[in-house]
């Protein structure tokens, strides 16, 4: 034990005489919450790294306010980070925390309702002063409440003071010292769940290379927190979660936005064509722009445009020039891009539009998740303007979906709309690092033969027109948003030609269904309830269906990758089940499409709270359906 750590124990500490009981657990959900200036996101990501290295399966859910710094200590300023880790496969960051670390009264107030009865509650008593209690709207100090103490396993730790003590004489100012207290909480949790800290320490030293004194202070407080657990009898238990039996291979932790960026870069590398991103900063999509802008030596060019429209317009310009073109945004930004999307589908140039969905409408809930842009993606343009739409289902799956979006865009010479969401974008999971050589190829072939060339002459199978880029001798041609002749591409106002082109563009997108493999059903191919979803709800739906199946229920799951076109066999799959339940984080957008496409009814389960589904919500709904009397 280090001398500095001894000091942190303060007056109320003494050396442990009885070793703590070690209890083995399958699955634990921990939530760190505090003021948005308290460094909860860093605490969470560091804890995640350490957990990943231990080989647990995990899923995370960062939840932070839209304001960068809401007034300190207030309810809107509370930032949280939840992680579920397990010795078996898990698919969500957990319905409700087993452990809540609350750094101030506001964090306690907003998060306590989620804590499971009997759960561990660690509070930083140092922040429970009169001002903070008042800001959080507490008339009296809640941690003195006997009911609270009876309902949860409450641990009162003066993290503020212990942090100050451990940094006494460090020469740091009070602000810097106060900022380190998240590391104390992290250290305690590392002790409680037997997480190694070496990589966290390395990470801190890397993060603060230019400020070694801050790095060392953080390390010291981290160790002090760990040692507090080790040497006081404050905690009588520590817990062990054994490594999960994941598929063999090399793993890393990845967020959805990182995975999407890697998928795009991989598309460029596999095709041998430059990736061009035209984008405008918007939450929660900006991270993709950040990631890609650092990959300049991977054949990636990024352009931060003056607005959303210039983002997509520049991408279309680059696509005309032969690049793999990408624009990234979120709902309101995608709304601004719709006219240009229509042009891209008229020009029949490859383009990927990535929408990291957030709570809408309008500015809505920028930092919260939602799935309410599906109808916008499928239908939201003027005229008959079909665009293939696909969605990713987990953070790691963003890699494959991003790659697939480009494969289809290039093969069919079409814009493709790729949907992810804030939950996937910021959430993370262990990711089995893929071998790019095993992905289906993306073959780019610019036509260079002027013999018999017509700009809108189509491939008979895919209906794709040739990609002819400026700089190619003898093939000068003009494209534009006016309706074009079905062969030459020249402007045409001919009525029959217009209808032919409308039907051809629709047929081309419909043929993307040829690329969709037979629908994978998790569970029996027929039964009582089919849980049918899309996008970021995958984890919650999967875990719910899995637990229902374990209880012998005839429940299966289908999760859609492609929303437009739909898989060819989906109608038939749906009809094999008594009931189709479509849970969505919107008012029922996929169910609208399914009803109109297949003339079947679907039961909807809708949640529009800016939060992901809980497994229990899905299970409850399915049970309700199973118990209702049959007609």
């Amino acid at each position: 034990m280090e001398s500095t750590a001894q000091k942190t124990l303060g007056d109320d500490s003494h050396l442990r005489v009885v070793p703590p009981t070690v209890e083995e657990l399958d699955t634990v959900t921990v939530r760190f919450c505090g003021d948005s200036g308290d460094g909860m996101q860093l605490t969470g990501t560091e804890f995640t790294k350490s957990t990943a290295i231990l080989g647990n399966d995990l899923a995370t859910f960062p939840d932070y306010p839209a304001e960068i710094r809401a007034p300190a200590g207030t309810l809107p300023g509370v930032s949280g980070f939840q992680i579920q880790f397990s010795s078996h496969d898990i698919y969500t960051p957990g319905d409700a925390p087993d452990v809540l670390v609350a750094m101030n009264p506001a964090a306690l107030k907003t998060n306590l309702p989620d804590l499971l009865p009997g759960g561990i509650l660690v509070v930083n008593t140092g922040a429970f002063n009169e001002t903070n209690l008042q800001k959080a709207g507490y008339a009296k100090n809640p941690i003195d409440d006997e009911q609270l103490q009876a309902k949860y396993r409450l641990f009162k730790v003066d993290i503020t003071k212990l942090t100050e003590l451990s940094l006494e004489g460090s020469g740091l100012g009070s602000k810097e010292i106060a900022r380190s207290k998240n590391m104390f909480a992290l250290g305690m949790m590392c002790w409680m769940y037997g997480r190694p800290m070496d990589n966290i320490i390395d990470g801190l030293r890397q993060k603060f290379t230019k400020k070694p004194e801050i790095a060392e202070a953080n390390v010291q407080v981290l160790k002090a927190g760990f040692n507090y657990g080790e040497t006081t009898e404050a905690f009588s238990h520590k817990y062990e979660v054994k490594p999960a039996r994941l598929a063999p291979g090399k793993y890393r932790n990845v967020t959805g936005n990182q995975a999407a960026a890697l998928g795009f870069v991989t598309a460029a590398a596999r095709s041998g064509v430059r990736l061009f991103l035209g984008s405008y900063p918007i939450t929660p999509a900006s991270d993709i722009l950040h990631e890609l802008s650092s990959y300049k030596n991977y054949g990636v060019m990024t352009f931060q445009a003056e607005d959303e429209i210039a983002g997509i317009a520049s991408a279309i310009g680059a696509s005309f020039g032969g690049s793999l073109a990408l624009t990234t945004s979120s709902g309101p930004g995608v709304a601004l891009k719709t006219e240009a999307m229509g042009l891209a589908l008229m020009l029949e140039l490859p383009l990927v539009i990535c929408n990291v969905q957030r709570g809408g409408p309008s500015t809505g809930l920028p930092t919260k998740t939602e799935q309410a842009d599906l109808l916008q993606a499928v239908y939201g343009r003027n005229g008959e303007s079909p665009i293939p739409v696909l969605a990713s289902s987990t953070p790691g799956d963003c890699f494959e979906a991003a790659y697939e979006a480009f494969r289809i865009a290039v093969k069919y010479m079409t814009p493709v709309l790729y949907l992810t969401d804030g939950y996937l974008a910021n959430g993370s999971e262990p990711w089995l690092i893929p071998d790019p050589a095993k992905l289906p190829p993306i073959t780019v072939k610019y036509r260079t033969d002027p013999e018999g060339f017509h700009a809108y002459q189509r491939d008979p199978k895919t209906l794709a027109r040739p990609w002819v880029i400026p700089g190619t001798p003898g093939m000068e041609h003009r494209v534009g948003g006016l309706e074009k002749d079905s062969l030459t591409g020249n402007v045409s106002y001919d009525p029959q030609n217009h209808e032919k082109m409308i039907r051809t563009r629709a047929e081309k997108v419909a043929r993307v269904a040829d690329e969709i493999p037979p629908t994978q059903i998790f569970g029996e191919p027929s039964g009582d309830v089919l849980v049918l979803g899309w996008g970021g709800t995958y984890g919650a739906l999967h875990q719910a269906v899995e637990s229902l199946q374990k209880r012998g229920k005839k429940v299966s799951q289908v999760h859609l990758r492609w929303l437009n076109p739909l898989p060819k066999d989906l109608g038939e799959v749906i009809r094999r089940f008594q009931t189709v339940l479509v849970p969505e984080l919107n008012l029922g957008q996929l169910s609208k499409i399914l009803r109109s496409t297949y003339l079947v009814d679907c039961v909807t389960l809708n949640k529009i709270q800016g939060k992901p589904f809980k497994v229990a919500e899905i299970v409850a709904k399915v049970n309700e359906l199973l118990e209702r009397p049959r007609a």
Partner: protein
Amino acid sequence: MSADLIPVSQKQALTKKDFQSDQDVRWCPGCGDYAILAQVQKLMPELGIPRHDIVFISGIGCSSRFPYYMNTYGMHSIHGRAPAFATGLKASRPELSVWVVTGDGDGLSIGGNHMIHTLRRNVDLKILLFNNRIYGLTKGQYSPTSELGKKTKSTPYGSVDAPFSPAQLALGAGSTFVARSVDVEPPHLLSTLRAAATHKGSAFVEIYQNCNVFNDGAYSYMTEKAVKADAQLVLEPGKPLVFGKAKDKAIRMNAKLQPEVFTLGKDGDLSQAIVHDPTNETLAWMLAHLAPPHFPTPIGVFRSVERPAYDALMNDQEKDVLAKKGKGDLQKLLNAGETWVVK
């Protein structure tokens, strides 16, 4: 990508006719756009750039039909956004000669944002803004350059909407090349276009253009034979600002640092006249503010200065990173950060 595909550009003996596409030109008879198209097609063979390395990109409006009539690569895009499409193309394919054709509504109203940011970045684009002070394609509403009080279909009682000057706007946005010409002055237009074409960086050319259907005679105050010598101030680098039928009027700065017109041999002599210098920033500003009724309308190159082009900087930066870090290894990138092996 393309650099290897494309043969080195050679001066080819092309003619004006080679740049005419097979499409019928469909502007109204008598439209000023015809004259501009003729001068652009006349200029192209001079540049020695093969047709396939030239791209015309436009937005929406009468002027924006332009690319269809050029036998080069072309894109008729969406309203106001041509500079953004062109930026993406030029940044990713810097070896191409990329031209933007726009109008006062397209480039200054719906597309004003793209215009100023493109000029600010100094993207190496040649931007031709046909200013007819009216919306022609939508059949006659006032535009951001229509004069106050103008009666149009949407302003039956006269416009109360103050116009701005495209040249002033371009200067304010930091354009490295700002010029003005007129559809009915073919030699002047040709020489102005030539100067724009050879400029490295954003070249902004405002072209006064007559819409004989919805705004006929908008520029007759300075194009009519009887008045034009007195109403036009032709800017020529290194030459004094002299104009008038008898070449007897000149412009000088007075003691209050305001420009004033004076008569040579009467109010002063040639040595007092300002000598035009397109690299003089202050002078460009002053010239852009000269307007009737107290001054003639300047035509020619207001400003021409050197500044690295955005597309070149982007590509240079890419090369620098490549030189420093080497070609990225995808496997390494995918395996970055902390990894662990599950057996």
